[in-house]
């Protein structure tokens, strides 16, 4: 009894510093921001007082609804592209790479070792008007104006590249857990390669698909570096708006309101997505 008690107090002792840090510097700031989002500025003073000003939300959303919707569209397209690009790579690393496996996994995480901003600057070079990539796209009619940089296309390309490893790694992890004998059984029962993939491999890898899409989508929606470096004035995302409202215009109430809506919408999207895809993903895991 005494030891049980001592063990339990040890647990709380081990937990305390980290929990306190997260509560003080993550949870409480969110509360402060919630309060700020309902504040009204005392005119001309930069001081705020609390007024339950729900109008902050209405005004912010009316002003910035385009950027809001755009962020979700860009992030959605980029996440889908990531899934399409990442799946073959994850599949090959899990089942076919053999002794190349470590090297290919290294290639997946290698972009993380260069600084995020420098990586994005490199895309500025790759997509510049003088680059062969731009010329090819122009030649096949995908860039009719002859330039890619400062368009939505460039922003989506940047986001896709920057968050691709977040898709590959969970996909690889779930594919790697699949028992190869299940795939062999499917082959033995005369399933063609494509029906083995659609009916066995893909359903079993669904947990990885769910995890990967979430890990890509969430940071992509809030991203503003790609839009800042690769996009033009018409490609600003909600992250750019929040950033400039906070740091340049000092319009804290509007920025807080937007941050909260962003967080809430992400939570709702994630929740619906997990309810929708999660049950099937779990079934896939049970079947193993």
């Amino acid at each position, binding site marked *: 009894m005494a030891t049980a008690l001592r063990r339990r107090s040890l647990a709380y002792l*081990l937990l305390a*510093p*980290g929990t306190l840090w997260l509560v003080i510097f993550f949870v409480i700031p969110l509360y*402060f921001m919630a309060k700020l989002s309902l504040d009204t500025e005392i005119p001309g003073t930069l001081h705020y007082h609390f007024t339950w000003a729900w109008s902050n939300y209405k005004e912010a959303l009316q002003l910035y609804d385009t950027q809001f919707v755009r962020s979700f569209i860009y992030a959605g397209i980029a996440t889908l592209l990531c899934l399409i690009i990442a799946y073959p790579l994850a599949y090959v690393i899990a089942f076919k790479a053999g002794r190349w496996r470590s090297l290919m996994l290294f290639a997946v995480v290698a972009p993380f070792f260069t600084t995020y901003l420098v990586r994005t600057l490199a895309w500025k070079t790759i997509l510049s008007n003088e680059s062969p990539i731009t010329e090819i796209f122009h030649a096949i009619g995908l860039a009719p104006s002859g330039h890619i940089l400062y368009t939505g296309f460039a922003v989506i390309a940047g986001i896709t590249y920057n968050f691709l490893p977040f898709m590959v790694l969970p996909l690889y992890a779930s594919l790697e857990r699949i028992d190869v004998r299940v795939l062999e059984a499917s082959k033995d029962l005369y399933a063609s390669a494509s029906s083995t993939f659609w009916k066995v491999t893909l359903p079993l890898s669904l947990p990885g698909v769910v995890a990967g899409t*979430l890990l890509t989508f969430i940071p992509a*929606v809030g991203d*503003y570096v790609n839009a800042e470096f690769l996009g033009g004035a018409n490609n600003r995302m909600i992250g750019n708006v929040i950033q400039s409202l906070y740091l340049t215009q000092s319009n804290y109430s509007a920025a807080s309101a937007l941050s909260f809506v962003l967080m809430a919408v992400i939570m709702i999207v994630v929740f619906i997505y997990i309810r929708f895809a999660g049950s099937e993903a779990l079934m896939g895991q049970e079947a193993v």
Partner: protein
Amino acid sequence: MSTTATTAVSERDITPGRGSLSAETGPARAWRWLREHAVNIAAVLVVIYLLIPIAVIFIFSFNNPAGRYNFTWVGFTLSHWSHPFANTELTEAMLTSIRLALLATVVSTIVGTMMAIALVRHKFVGRRIANFLIVIPMATPEVVMGASLLSFFLVLGTPALGFTTLLIAHVMFCISFVVVVVRSRLIGFDRSLEEAAKDLGAGPFTTFRLITFPLILPGIFGAAMLAFALSIDDFVISNFNSGTTVTFPLYIFGAAQRGIPVEVYVVAMILFFVTVAAMGFATWQQRRAERMTSIRPEQEEADIVLPGIA
């Protein structure tokens, strides 16, 4: 030649959905080879795609640009590599980044490891809440975290924005990742070794010092590396909470408006090579540790990349 042709034909005969029996011509054979290796080819293309920007950074670190921007190729020069730290502003920013990342790594690794041990090894009231508290920062967009922390500092009026607030912020977003990595190491851990130590008369502290700690050390090391990488690369949260302090990413962002010196590319490449070397060392250490114990190696790799969702 003829025998191989017949086997090829008979093979195709029993495989459903394959073409006619006529002898394969060159293009047809090439097409079949392409179809059979399509996945591999796609994977190799994706690997190339992943590495192209790194190659671009490397190549452009030798560029000799005409203006202030390093976006188009002008000519080859070694001058930036021979004086990578000539730009004092940049060097200063890099040193601040390294100092910040080291401190944030030490604090978050200690605090996070303690949390991971509590979560895996102890049963207590509020475990679910603690788990939730760890997952939720990883599911929050950085811009929201940065903005809310800035609100907090502004409302309180203290501490003044600068190195301290940066350190607070970096430790905050590193903790969750440290917990996830160390926890996966603790889960894939052979408890019988600890029981053996206990049976041989070791107290709980001795068992921890001589058995548990050395065994989870590779996990802690991996977590520390991840924390360091996250901290040194962070831009969004730092941009909100830096005040006048300039880190490497903040320097680049500021410079992007007035022209980017080539040294940025050189320093980025140096950082890349150092990280690769450290990664290689860590992998080697881990392999050695695994050879000595019976920890299941596949388990943790899978868990590292699924923070809190699996």
